[in-house]
């Protein structure tokens, strides 16, 4: 039998023709996703806008690296990021005037409702997990469910994999049967959910998300290859390290999750306060700890997510505030970083020192402005936080 039949050759030619047309079409149909990398304690502006801080935090021309787009990053902390990522970097200014951790952490994530959850809901994904938390939040961060999205803590990849790609192992429930069963379960739950609209608000979202996910065709996901890329043991599925957080974030995004949140853990290198790097006037400690704890994982994450064929991933890197040049105290403002295919390189957060305090140009937008930008970058057109004041989106 001839293995190359006429039909198979024609099929192959058609596939090649379709492949040639793929880039333009794929560009139009790419899913969007948002990754949030949050540093509890603070995110020093020296990492992303060292040129405007020249002379502070021992920043010199030799300590920074040009990105090729008119911006500069700190060589130690971000110099090892892939060039493709640095060329898709923008720096976003946030002026919020809050210097205490608790209210700043609360405000950075929650306006009238949770910013990430509002974005996740507005993205209208049919994924089971709308917003996955791979690390941990402090209790200051409110994450009350919003209609259409709730926060799901993923401490082990295996259950998330089961939900996304399905177990269907012998003796286990069948996915389609489970979906039908859950429809009945939701139906008989409705009276109770309606009597408890606030306390059980997550139930309706949970049923809706899970049934939707179970009724979808299964996506092929390969934890083994993702884990290996981040230097993890592919047999372990527990999310108990920074590398595992980034790897799990990539996995859930591959599985269709619109929003994933990573919270890198500090070490004791700058004292017990972690990313809250008081006394680090030279910036040496913040640089070194960032390099030790985050750079390699972030670099791998950006390299892999920017190369995804079917998903446009925007990555937001921030803390609750920046650090004052004088003794690295709490600042009232923040220079956040955002990477992504739709990011237009630019800097709306050129932080500088004013009498030892970190300062922003007059008129720098507040927290809602940051999330308005992020919402636009991930394709949310409903402007849930108002108009985007940052001209950092490619047209």
């Amino acid at each position: 039998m001839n293995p190359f039949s006429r039909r198979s050759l024609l099929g192959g030619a058609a596939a090649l023709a379709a492949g040639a047309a793929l880039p333009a079409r794929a560009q139009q149909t790419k899913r969007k996703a948002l990754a949030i990398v949050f540093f509890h304690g603070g995110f020093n502006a020296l990492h992303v806008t060292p040129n405007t801080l020249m002379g502070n935090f021992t920043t010199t021309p030799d300590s920074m690296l040009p990105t090729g787009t008119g911006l500069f990053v700190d060589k130690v902390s971000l110099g090892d990021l892939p060039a493709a990522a640095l060329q898709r970097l923008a720096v976003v200014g946030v002026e919020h005037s809050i210097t205490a951790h608790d209210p700043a952490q609360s405000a950075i994530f929650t306006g009238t409702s949770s910013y990430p959850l509002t974005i996740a809901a507005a993205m209208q994904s049919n994924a089971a997990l709308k917003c996955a938390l791979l690390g941990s939040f402090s209790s200051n961060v409110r994450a009350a469910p919003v209609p259409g999205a709730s926060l799901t803590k993923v401490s082990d990849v295996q259950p998330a994999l089961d939900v996304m790609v399905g177990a269907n192992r012998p003796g286990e429930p069948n996915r389609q049967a489970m979906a039908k069963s859950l429809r009945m379960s939701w139906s008989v739950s409705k009276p109770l959910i309606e009597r408890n609209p606030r306390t059980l608000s997550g139930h309706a979202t949970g049923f809706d998300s899970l049934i939707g996910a179970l009724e979808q065709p299964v996506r092929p996901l390969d934890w083994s290859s993702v884990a290996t890329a981040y230097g993890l043991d592919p047999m372990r599925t527990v999310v108990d390290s920074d590398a595992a957080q980034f790897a799990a974030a990539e996995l859930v995004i591959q599985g269709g999750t619109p929003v994933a949140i990573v919270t890198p853990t500090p070490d004791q290198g700058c004292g017990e306060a972690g990313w809250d790097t008081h006394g680090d006037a030279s910036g040496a400690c913040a640089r070194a700890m960032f390099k030790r704890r985050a750079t390699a994982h972030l670099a791998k994450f950006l390299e892999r997510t920017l190369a995804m064929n079917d998903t446009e991933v925007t990555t937001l890197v921030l803390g609750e505030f920046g650090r004052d040049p004088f003794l690295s105290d709490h600042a009232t403002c923040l220079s956040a970083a955002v990477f992504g295919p739709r990011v237009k390189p630019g800097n709306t957060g050129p932080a500088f020192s004013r009498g030892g305090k970190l300062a922003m140009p007059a008129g720098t937008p507040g927290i809602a402005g940051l999330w308005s930008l992020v919402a636009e970058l991930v394709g949310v057109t409903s402007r849930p936080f108002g108009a985007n004041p940052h001209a950092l989106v490619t047209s």
Partner: protein
Amino acid sequence: MKATWLVLLLAACEGTIVGARPVPESVDPNPSGPTVSHVDGPQYATAKCEGVGMARTFRGLDGQVLEAGRTDAAFDLDRRQTRTWETTAAWGADMNQKLGYYLASDGLAPTALVPVRSRGGVEYAYTSPPMGALELYSQFRLGFLMCSRLLKSPPVGQLERTAFVIDPKIGQPFADFLAAPTLESGMRRCESMMRRFWKLVPSAEQVAACADFAVNDTAAFASAPQERWAYVCAALLTSSGAITQ
């Protein structure tokens, strides 16, 4: 002096002091109205309480209306909280109590459920921990495994635990579970499982919805009677009544 205060305090508690008296239930002129306005004075208009007829108003010793200005929650709403299982053992104990079988959850590790208490960012003090897709999936999957185990190998001889599968009169599984669900058996077993898992009385509509699922839907994806019943059982174990308290 102390005795005087004690008398005053007791009198206030008894409602014999003017201003601290309980409001007569029959005086509400508008039972369907949104506010309580049956006590004199314009300041009372701000005291909103939907539990008209059950509410009391109180005055302090200086005549101040103690509840004035408060925004009351709607009556009887948001009293139910999602269960939190801090450990696998705690989850297992709850499931075993529901299923009446002390081995039902043996060896099953609900990884997605255990960390509920430590999940970050959720203010469970006043916002119930969410039961999202991951937790519901895990609960259903484990519920299915437990119910299958129970229906295939019922724990004969443990009548004191009154497993819902066992007929205490004969010490054997109910005949209903050995045959495909019918409307009658579906109604009967759905109601008994709902009562057991929820500790609430289901409505006729809820029982009918469950029975309809048992009779008509399960046939499409399962053939063995025990497997069909296991889907019914797992679905009810995942329903909000079973995962809240």
